[in-house]
């Protein structure tokens, strides 16, 4: 038996809990059935669906998110990190073990749904519904585990909170499934020109998101256990999201535009998420530089922060968007002069990443998240607004050119800002090297 699963089962499945769970659920079902005696089957069914969501999607997600943070707080996490278990054993042991009691409750809820149907309640798509509920449950649990693993590596509380945001995208999918759970035939979903029954579409989506979330939890666990992996999954997830959202555009031209725009938006969004949720420290940057200097390219790529991969992936999407916006007669609302805005947006994200790196290279023991957010807010909103109010509109546009300049001008302004930030990063990097003496060449990949 997986040792981590067994440890969790020792903690979670006590006799008291095994008895209390069916008793509590039975009382809830009786309560709602008795309030609607004429249609007790329908009342039991809908109560079972609601209790499934409460037990799995709410309580189970909380338990999954606490699976690692509890251990960090109780100082038992080092024992686990020192174990000989591989990341997959540790991931599924925690995922299934920490949420074991909620899945026990979920099983009882499904039994109640079946009993309601045996009693005469009609529901054709029970299997699809349960599949969607289970998959969305796994998705939110795995995403919560991945988020808590990210959070455990953050030094600042702000970073902790941002790390825990990881489970929100998956939670949104869970909510999709939940939304479609109550109605047997919701309106059809149009995706890449094809029509899908909503509950089937969202259940299938929940299954796919569950796979992505489990992959994310596995990879975060691998990083925590110092198992080295190439960073392909994060940009692959960005491509998946781009393809998913791109499918909602209507018609072939709109689909192409929608795909390009969603690709850029997703890549930029995941870049900001990765920047604040992932760990980028002076140490990790020094290791990357050392590997680069020694020509250990695989090690260098393995150490790359998540945000670098999606920022790089945003480049082709930005150029594609610029080309579409420049050429397409479909988008008559977009003036030609705005065509290079996607490039300016990309440069804005690059500038903000540079600001983060600048502060990460500092001697502060605290994380750079808070100070970076402050400077982004100052440069993007506060100072431009103050300058505009003071009648210095030209100066304001040099800080935030969007809306008041065309795409070319905005790109040039953002390019200058990126150059300044890059210069500051290089200056701080050299200062840090001077402080510790120059780096000797690495002797081997280690």
């Amino acid at each position, binding site marked *: *038996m997986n*040792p*981590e699963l*067994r*440890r969790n089962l*020792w*903690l979670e499945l006590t006799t008291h809990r095994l008895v209390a769970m069916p008793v509590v659920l039975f009382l809830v079902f009786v309560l709602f059935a008795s309030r609607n005696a004429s249609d007790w089957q329908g009342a039991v069914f809908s109560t079972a669906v609601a209790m499934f969501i409460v037990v799995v999607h709410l309580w189970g997600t909380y338990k999954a998110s606490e699976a690692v943070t509890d251990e960090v707080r*109780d*100082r*038992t996490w*080092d*024992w*686990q*990190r*020192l*174990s*000989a*278990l*591989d990341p997959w054993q540790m991931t599924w042991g925690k995922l299934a073990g920490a949420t074991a009691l909620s899945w026990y409750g979920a099983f009882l809820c499904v039994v109640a749904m079946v009993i309601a149907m045996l009693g005469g309640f009609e529901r054709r798509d029970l299997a699809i519904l349960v599949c969607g509920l289970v998959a969305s449950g796994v998705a939110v649990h795995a995403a919560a585990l991945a988020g808590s693993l990210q959070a455990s590596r953050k030094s600042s509380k702000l970073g902790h909170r941002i790390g825990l945001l990881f489970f929100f995208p998956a939670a949104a999918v869970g909510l999709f499934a939940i939304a479609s759970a109550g109605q047997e035939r919701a309106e059809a979903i149009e995706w890449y020109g094809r029509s899908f029954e909503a509950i089937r579409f969202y259940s299938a989506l929940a299954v796919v998101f569950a796979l992505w979330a489990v992959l994310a939890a596995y990879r975060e666990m691998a990083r925590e*256990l*110092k*198992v080295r992996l190439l960073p392909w999954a994060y940009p692959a997830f960005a491509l998946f999201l781009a393809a998913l959202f791109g499918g909602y555009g209507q018609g072939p031209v709109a689909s192409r535009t929608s795909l390009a725009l969603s690709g850029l938006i997703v890549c930029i969004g995941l870049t900001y998420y990765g920047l604040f949720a992932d760990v980028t*420290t*002076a*140490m990790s940057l*020094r*290791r990357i530089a*050392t590997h680069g200097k020694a020509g250990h390219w695989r090690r260098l790529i393995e150490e790359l922060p998540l945000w670098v991969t999606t920022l790089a992936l945003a480049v082709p999407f930005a150029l594609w968007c610029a080309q579409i916006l420049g050429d397409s007669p479909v988008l008559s609302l977009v003036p030609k002069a705005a065509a290079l805005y996607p490039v300016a947006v990309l440069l804005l994200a690059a500038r903000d990443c540079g600001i983060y790196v600048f502060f990460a290279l*500092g*001697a*502060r*023991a605290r994380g750079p998240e808070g100070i970076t957010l402050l400077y982004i807010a100052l440069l993007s909103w506060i100072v431009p607004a103050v300058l505009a109010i003071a009648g210095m509109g030209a100066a304001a546009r040099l800080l935030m050119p969007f809306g008041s300049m065309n795409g070319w001008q905005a790109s040039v302004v953002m390019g200058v800002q990126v150059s300044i930030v890059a210069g500051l990063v290089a200056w701080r990097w050299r200062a840090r090297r001077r*402080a*510790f003496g120059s*780096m*000797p060449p*690495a*002797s*081997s*990949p*280690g």
Partner: protein
Amino acid sequence: MMNVSQGEGNAAPIASVAGVRFEYPGVRALDDVSFTLARGTVTALVGPNGAGKSTLLRCMAGLETPILGEIEVAGVDVLDSPRKAHRHLGYLSDFFGVYDALTVRQCLTHAGAINGTSEAELPSAVARTARSLALSDRLDSAAGTLSRGLRQRLAIGQALIHSPRLLLLDEPAAGLDPEARHGLAVLFRELQASGMTIVVSSHILAELDEYSTDMLVLKGGRVVEQRSLEAGAEARERRMQVTLAAPDPRAVEVLAAQSNVSSVVADGALVSFALRGDETAQAPVLRALVEAGVAVVAFGEARENLHDSYLRTVAEPRK
């Protein structure tokens, strides 16, 4: 007693650390740290606060990744294959926790299982570990109900239940009463006798002196000294000590006149000196003292005190 399997020849070091560098924001915690650990030794890892002792142990355990350097344990590259290396090493952090809701038996079973002990061997490994740590009568007690000393013993048990070949302990005796500390010293000697190599970081030098065979001194993130504490183990020059009936300046004169004697230090009625040669070289020196009329009460080899040795090392300017 545990038996640690010896995969390679005893001559090869059990662990090697080469050129390790580690930095915290604004601080270089380890700077070009290199050393090897001989099999079956108990190394006292000592140094002032902030010297980098805990960081070094965490890097050796594969919990932290240094900027530069290589670490090998039992022939396994810790930075390349940490999971594989963990089968060969045990580590106890200075700030450890135990699973309070689990029983001692469950804690030890879990620790053994996650470190690769087979299901069939687990019950005997748990019983053996509990016996060696005097926890047999507590196996069914919840860990949360144990006293501090017993929790410490349980944590040490978790670190060594899989019979690691290298055991890294960061302040293992912190918070223990004198009796428990003595028990720990006895355990370490038993583990050493079974072939285990142990590194103990501690500020309690008198306690380290009870069981350490080697000393590794860190200062400012650098290794300033690594040597054996066992007299005569490395060199033919041994530290000797003469106890006189009363302070006598002639003792120093006589000793200084011997060709195989150096570094004579007198402290009241105690005179210590370095002697080149084996036991047969002792007799002429003793005879010279007696013939000079020096009242010798005791004459023998002095095992260097770890405390004195440490203070001498850290007080010296960095080489």
